[in-house]
């Protein structure tokens, strides 16, 4: 495997964690939860704090990331989004509240941990190993494998478990789903906690691979949200879109200049929003277009 392909796979996997979990939440709740990016940052900082303690093994740090990010998301879902839904808040209300959550959490992390760049502890997990022509560390392999496992887990839950039937029923019509006995609130809480937990894991892996700042989640959610839009609300679509974005960024960096990478992603987003807002896998959306 060439180094170039390896880099694309790794970048795509890191964005993929955010994109898959973001689309999982978005499909159920119907609004762009930008606050989801804050859980990436929370996960990354939870891993950083754990790595400073005696329990510095990455597996422990990643597990802590999952539970901290998931726990905070559960509390926020119960205290912010459920009361808003009870008051029949619109998608825009929910969106603005999630924007507020992103701002509050990133600034609070910056306040508590400082805005300077942090580096997670190094060890055998950051040592490179040779795979064909490419050099890749164990933690990078874990990021790629973890993303694939997450996708398999989501697919299994969606199509092989009763949870998936309930999830799809609530996505289609939550009033009807409630009337046939599905515990909609419990399902929303479970999805919020699970999606945020895995976003936290993505954040931890991201922090192991690159440096860590409080703005990590903001950048992650921008790329993740773009991938989710392009992927058409589907977790599988979002995963593929994350890979496309990563490939585009790396090709652009090789052929032109790194500095225009981010702009190219947003141009791609606008092209999709204008020409195919339902994404490449989605069906026509009346709500998105006039």
């Amino acid at each position, binding site marked *: 495997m060439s180094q170039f392909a390896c880099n694309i796979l790794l970048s795509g996997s890191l964005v993929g964690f955010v994109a898959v979990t973001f689309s999982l939440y978005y499909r159920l709740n119907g609004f762009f939860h930008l606050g989801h990016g804050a859980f990436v940052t929370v996960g990354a900082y939870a891993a950083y704090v754990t790595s400073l303690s005696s329990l510095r093994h990455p597996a422990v740090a990643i597990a802590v990331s999952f539970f901290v990010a998931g726990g905070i998301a559960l509390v926020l879902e119960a205290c912010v989004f459920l009361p808003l839904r009870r008051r029949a808040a619109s998608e825009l*209300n929910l969106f603005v509240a999630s924007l507020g959550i992103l701002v509050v959490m990133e600034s609070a992390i910056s306040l508590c941990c400082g805005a300077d760049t942090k580096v997670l502890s190094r060890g055998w997990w950051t040592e490179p190993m040779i795979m064909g022509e490419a050099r890749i560390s164990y933690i990078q392999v874990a990021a790629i494998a973890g993303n694939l496992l997450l996708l398999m887990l989501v697919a299994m839950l969606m199509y092989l478990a009763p949870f998936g039937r309930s999830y799809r029923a609530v996505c289609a019509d939550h009033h009807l789903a409630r009337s046939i006995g599905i515990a909609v609130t419990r399902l929303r809480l479970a999805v919020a906690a699970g999606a945020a937990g895995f976003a936290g894991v993505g954040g931890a892996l991201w922090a192991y691979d690159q440096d860590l700042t409080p703005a990590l989640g903001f950048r992650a959610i921008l790329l993740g949200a773009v991938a989710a839009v392009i992927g058409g609300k589907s977790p599988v679509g979002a995963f593929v879109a994350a890979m496309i974005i990563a490939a585009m960024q790396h090709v652009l960096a090789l052929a032109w200049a790194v*500095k*225009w990478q981010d702009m190219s992603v947003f*141009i791609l987003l606008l092209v999709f929003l204008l020409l195919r807002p339902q994404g490449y896998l989605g069906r026509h959306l009346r709500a998105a277009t006039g």
Partner: protein
Amino acid sequence: MDYFLHILVMISIYSVLAVSLDLLVGRTGLLSLCHAVFYGIGAYTAALLAGHCGAPFLVGVAAGMVVAGTASLLVSIPSLRLRGDYFVIATFGFQMIFFSVLNNWMLLTRGPLGIAGIPQPDVFGWNVNSNLEFAVLAATFAVFAYVVVGLIVTSPFGRVLHAIREDEVFARACGKNTPRFKVVVFAVSSALPAMAGALYAHYITYVSPTSFTVAESILVLSMVIVGGAGSLRGALVGAVVLVSLPEALRFLGLPMAAAANLRQVLYGALLVVMMIFRPRGLVGKYAFGQ
């Protein structure tokens, strides 16, 4: 005294931004997250004209308004097909593209270095250089924006905007060309912040991309929501509250970085609290997003 006059100048500048954004968010129901783009266009146009051509202040202001109004077509015409959070995400994309251009187009904007040495304004022989004079000039701009938006919203044109906000399909059924109304209101709402941007550039005598980030767009949106969307008084109250309240943090003796983060926490928390408990804002009549 100079400190209080500085606060007054900033309140006036943000009043222009909040009143003009309210025209979109509160009156037309279009939630835009790219208001800092037009603010930045005004600031950079005035800075470049004053620096390279020695253009008088008012020529810079007028040119900034024309450029911003024209640039708004790039956002509004393609975005006409989009609704709700898809429209928001599209404006968000434009904001990110604009920041990337400001940050990387070294030949025109000098990138992160910004443009320094912008001369202080001269208005028909009146050389504005003290904080008191700036406060008078900024208050004049704020009154101008208030009157322009007030005239628009009380005119038949403004009533059509209300109709679009309440039910666009019905407005169209009544024979109103709603896309045309949206494009025009977007252009007006973009030209006014350019005026504030030009004033800001000449007041601070320096512009850089960091003054026109998405955080700035979120701040202006917070002003509209906290004060009360759909109300001119609300936009003013929002600007006064969100500019002056964080200034109180200075008296706590916190370090600069901590105070900046605490300010962001305050803005974000206000957004969440307002969405849950008072979506119509402090003095507004229209429940945002309902």
